[in-house]
């Protein structure tokens, strides 16, 4: 049976069709969910796509956080359901306190739309297990507020817990290192491109794996992330213990 994955569409989402296509490529059935839905239609996993929900007014993600569907998403996450936020979806998850940290305006002030490389720091999570090995994954970024920020104590804690899921890297896979490194497109602290919650079932990242799932799109390096997520959601729904859960 095909696994059903919800794609939440907010007013201003614009990567929802890319997300639906990526789920199709990963052999999942995408179920569009609307921002004022109060339940999740029994989906096995939830994907929050990119865009500019509610115009990114006030702060990116904050107005979406209070939408009815996010109450259902928070409940789903609290039950151990798998939730993946991409770009604006990541911003929404941090504003909803489902993920740690905040996304600040890019250090260079400009909206950045270009290809970057990231690498998974862990290959034993529901969102990365299908990647197989640690290597540079090419995919685009397209955001104005993607500079990952948390205070030093929180950053140390995230590192110690294994909650830093993706880092920006150079093409050969070396960490982007400093905040001003060109491989770090937005000045994120410790070159953090994505994080996972302590329970290991909610993750977010600024780059767009869903638009890098087929060679014709310029890269299929993102498919491993989408496929990991889909497989984990399917396993959970089938009642099997996922192969890997939780922080280190």
């Amino acid at each position, binding site marked *: 049976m095909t696994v059903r994955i919800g794609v939440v569409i907010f007013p201003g989402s614009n990567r929802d069709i890319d997300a639906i296509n990526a789920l199709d490529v990963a052999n999942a059935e995408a179920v569009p969910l609307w921002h004022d839905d109060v339940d999740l239609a029994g989906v096995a996993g939830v994907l929050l796509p990119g865009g500019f929900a509610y115009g990114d007014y*006030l702060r990116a993600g*904050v107005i979406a956080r*209070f939408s009815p569907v996010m109450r259902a998403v928070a409940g789903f996450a609290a039950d151990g359901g798998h939730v993946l936020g991409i770009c604006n979806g990541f911003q929404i998850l941090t504003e909803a306190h489902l993920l740690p940290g*905040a996304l*600040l*305006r*890019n250090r260079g002030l400009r909206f950045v739309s270009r290809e970057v490389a990231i690498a998974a720091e862990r290959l034993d999570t529901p969102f990365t297990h299908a990647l197989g090995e640690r290597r540079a994954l090419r995919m685009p970024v397209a955001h104005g507020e993607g500079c990952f*920020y948390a205070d030093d104590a929180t950053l140390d804690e995230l590192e110690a817990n294994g909650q830093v899921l993706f880092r920006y890297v150079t093409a050969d896979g070396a960490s982007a290192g400093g905040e001003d490194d060109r491989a770090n497109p937005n000045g994120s602290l410790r070159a953090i491109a994505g994080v996972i919650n302590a329970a290991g079932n909610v993750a977010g990242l600024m780059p767009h794996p869903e638009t890098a799932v087929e060679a014709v799109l310029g890269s299929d390096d993102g498919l491993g992330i989408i496929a990991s997520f889909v497989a984990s959601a399917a396993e959970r729904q089938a009642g099997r213990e996922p192969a890997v859960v939780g922080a280190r």
Partner: protein
Amino acid sequence: MTAMDFRFAVNVSPKPGILDPQGRAVEGSRGHQGSEGVSCVRVGRRIEVTVAAADEDAARAIVERLAAEFLSNPLIEAYVVEAVGAASSTRSGVPA
């Protein structure tokens, strides 16, 4: 008891130590504009709201919660709530 309208401003600014690229850009360009001696620019936002409540304390409590949970992100921003007008009998949302 009838509710009265109270008007507040919530001033939200980046916390000390938080990178403020907008402030840095303003600071970096002030020389082109011609101002001398300007430093430590921080760019925030001001949000004005009208709240109907029994008295000012009750109204302020509502605004404080709004500011803490919605108008600011406590990880990165600080806020100050300020009363900006006496109670008025209209709810036009326009400051007197």
